[in-house]
């Protein structure tokens, strides 16, 4: 009997990229649902409907962008009818995971974002950041972050700056009024104004659509770590670095432990750490690289947060760090098993650099 030649190995694992993406999608849907319920309880029906509309628009536009793209780009395939042609776009669209991008984007947008801005931001995320790069897997920049930043720059203050629909976000208030140079009195007073950390954690915060779901984000993180769909060191190192830098800064300012906590809970930091910084496609490919990425991501986030008028530094810093991914991959290319000590030393050096740069810049410029 004759057989066709096939290269070895001849067996494959059962986990599939499809399962991984589905798990992330489930985690995102969970966060979305939690957020909508929290918004309903805290702010009422109008607010929730507005959020739901933005989410729905983002999802529909993301899918349509893919369908249209693949209707045009058929790679020379011939179809007997338009329906055939339309059908052929379905598997291709599915492969690109548009819903994941759409949900990450929508959850990061302020509730007051105008619908046309949502549409444009989504098209940018799907078309320019993903499809033009050859689709899922080929993209260099995090699509959702591209959507956020491009949407924000093009359509002005509504997207990134204080949220007109729902009132100023805590982040905008702090940045605008104090430039993050808080005293115990202003800081604690500010937090008390929101009812303390617990409500901040559980939902009574106006801001991005996903903001009221910080607890859900943490639960989703645990779920995804348990399902092994992301590398836990990324959010862990990222948040640890943020805490270390802001902790040292709090010593400089002479304020209490609430200060780093406020930083971690502010803006899209937690959400971005879990859902954007962990996107495997746009982050380094090995452990050491990912740790370096997380450390420098924290540095960039805080440098922007401390020193610019942009309150939403997460998406920017993700895009900036995305550019360094090829370099990090190259610098961490050695045999992972043979050089543990060197790798640990490298990580420590990076950590010290990140702290020095952030604090040095902030203190000298401020």
């Amino acid at each position, binding site marked *: 009997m004759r*057989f066709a030649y096939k290269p070895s190995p001849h067996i494959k694992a059962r986990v599939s*990229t499809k399962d991984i993406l589905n798990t992330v999608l489930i985690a995102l849907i969970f966060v979305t649902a939690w957020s909508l319920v929290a918004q309903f309880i805290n702010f009422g029906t109008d607010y929730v409907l507005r959020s739901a509309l933005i989410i729905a628009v983002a999802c529909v536009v993301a899918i349509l962008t893919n369908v249209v793209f693949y209707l045009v780009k058929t790679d020379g395939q011939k179809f007997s009818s338009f329906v055939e042609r339309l059908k052929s776009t379905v598997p291709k669209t599915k492969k690109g995971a548009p819903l994941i991008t759409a949900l990450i984007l929508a959850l990061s947008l302020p509730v007051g974002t105008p619908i046309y801005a949502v549409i444009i931001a989504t098209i940018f995320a799907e078309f320019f950041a993903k499809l033009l790069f050859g689709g899922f897997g080929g993209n260099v920049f995090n699509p959702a972050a591209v959507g956020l930043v491009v949407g924000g720059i093009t359509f002005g203050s509504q997207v990134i700056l204080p949220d007109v629909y729902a009132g100023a976000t805590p982040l905008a208030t702090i940045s605008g009024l104090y430039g993050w140079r808080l005293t115990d009195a202003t800081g604690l007073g500010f937090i008390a104004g929101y009812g303390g950390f617990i409500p901040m954690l559980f939902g009574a915060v106006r801001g991005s659509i996903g903001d009221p779901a910080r607890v859900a984000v943490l639960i989703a993180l645990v779920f995804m770590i348990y399902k092994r769909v992301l590398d836990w060191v990324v959010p862990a190192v990222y948040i640890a670095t943020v805490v270390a830098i802001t902790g040292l800064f709090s010593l400089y300012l002479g304020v209490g432990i609430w200060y780093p906590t406020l930083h971690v809970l502010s803006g899209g930091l937690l959400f971005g750490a879990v859902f954007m910084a962990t996107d495997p496609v746009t982050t380094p490919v090995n452990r050491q690289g990912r740790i370096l990425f997380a450390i420098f991501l924290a540095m960039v986030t805080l440098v922007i947060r401390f020193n610019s008028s942009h309150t939403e530094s997460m998406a920017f810093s993700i895009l900036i760090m995305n550019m360094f991914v090829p370099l990090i991959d190259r610098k961490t290319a050695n045999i992972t098993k043979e050089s543990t000590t060197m790798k640990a030393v490298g990580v420590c050096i990076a950590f010290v650099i990140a702290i020095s740069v952030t604090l040095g810049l902030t203190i000298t410029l401020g």
Partner: protein
Amino acid sequence: MGFFSGPNQVIADNAKELTGSKPIMEYLKPKTVAIPLKHMKSEAFDVHVEVGDDVKIGTKIATRNDNFTVPLFSSVSGKVIAIEKRDHVTLKKANHIIIENNFLDEKEPLFEPIADFRTLSRDDVVNYLKLDGHQGMSGDGYATYAKFEKVRHVRTVMLNGVECEPYITADEASMMNNADLLFEGLLLFIKGSGAKEGIIAIDRNRTDLAKILNETAKKYSDHYTDQNIKIKIQVSFVPDTYPMGWERTLIEEVLGFTYDINKYPVDAGVLVFNTTTAIEFARTLKTGLPLYERVVTLSGEGLANPQNVRVRIGTILKEVIDETGGYIEGFDPKNARLIAGGPFMGSGIITDELSIPAATGAFLSLVNTEKEVLPCLRCGSCIEHCPVGIQPVQIAAAHKIRDLDFMEKLGTDRCIECGACTFACPSFIEVADSTSKAKNFYLSRK
């Protein structure tokens, strides 16, 4: 295993139950055998017979004549009927000596059987190995005597009976039936290398085998080296992960140390052999007859009746498959694979009409193995599971743009082609194949 490197191994469904529990079947009366004039990559042989010559079991019919000396022997008694090119497990055609069996099983011993191995000197052991052409019997086929040539200070001889490849139970079956020969072979290798310690490593889930080996080990606790040092004999149990049987992984697991990536186990004082090689060497010294039979595992979901079979070296695979009951009903080779060796490292072969060489311990027929390839999501799973700790996904990318400097930095030439990366890839990408192509490209340009 490490924080930065990941687990460096994979866990696969071992599928050993298909053959492990069944008794060994025999297929010892092939009409013809075909002895390939090919050893590892070499086809340089002196042929000592002509068409029409009469041969017996053990008649030396050819000898490899380049940088290794490897004799080949007839595995049946009968007549040489042809020397011709045929399909070979390496996929390329090679010359084979075809011998027609006269079913008389006349034997031509190579030397007088040795009654007491204790009379042998260190050099005797190596000389006998060279004389009888023993080779690694679970895949690589490396000439056993050659392993002793690099020896300086060997502390430990390790017999590798791990069989970390799924489906294969041939070594296990041989050990179950030849526990005494196994320990005698171990002592022979210890003598040949000047070691003071012998370890037999097996999968810790093989409980029946463990019992037998632990029992037998007691009988061999009273042996001494030439310097009159008591030899330590030990059976070690290792986890059922892949590639646990790779020397580097095995030594790290059993002996607890790693050694320079540029070096071989022997540089770290350890010589590693396959357990079946040890058994067959001891048998040869006892009988004076070179290797002429072996146990092969025929398994996989594509076969009606997976089975370990004792066959003559050079038997045609198809005959043995038919003897066990053939392929499953409705078998379609279009969505199946035939593999010489294990599912990880075995090579995909294109026909079942080839002869079974001494070095191959299994032939598998797997069905429905194809999966739709998805885009690489750069998840790093291939990196984490690579036993060497190199970065397959990056190597493939560097190869695509022909970046030799980067390929060097990535340690491209270190790939052992174990297949763990492809197995671990959730996008079902043939990363191992890309990496081995990259390695060949890199080595050809360096």
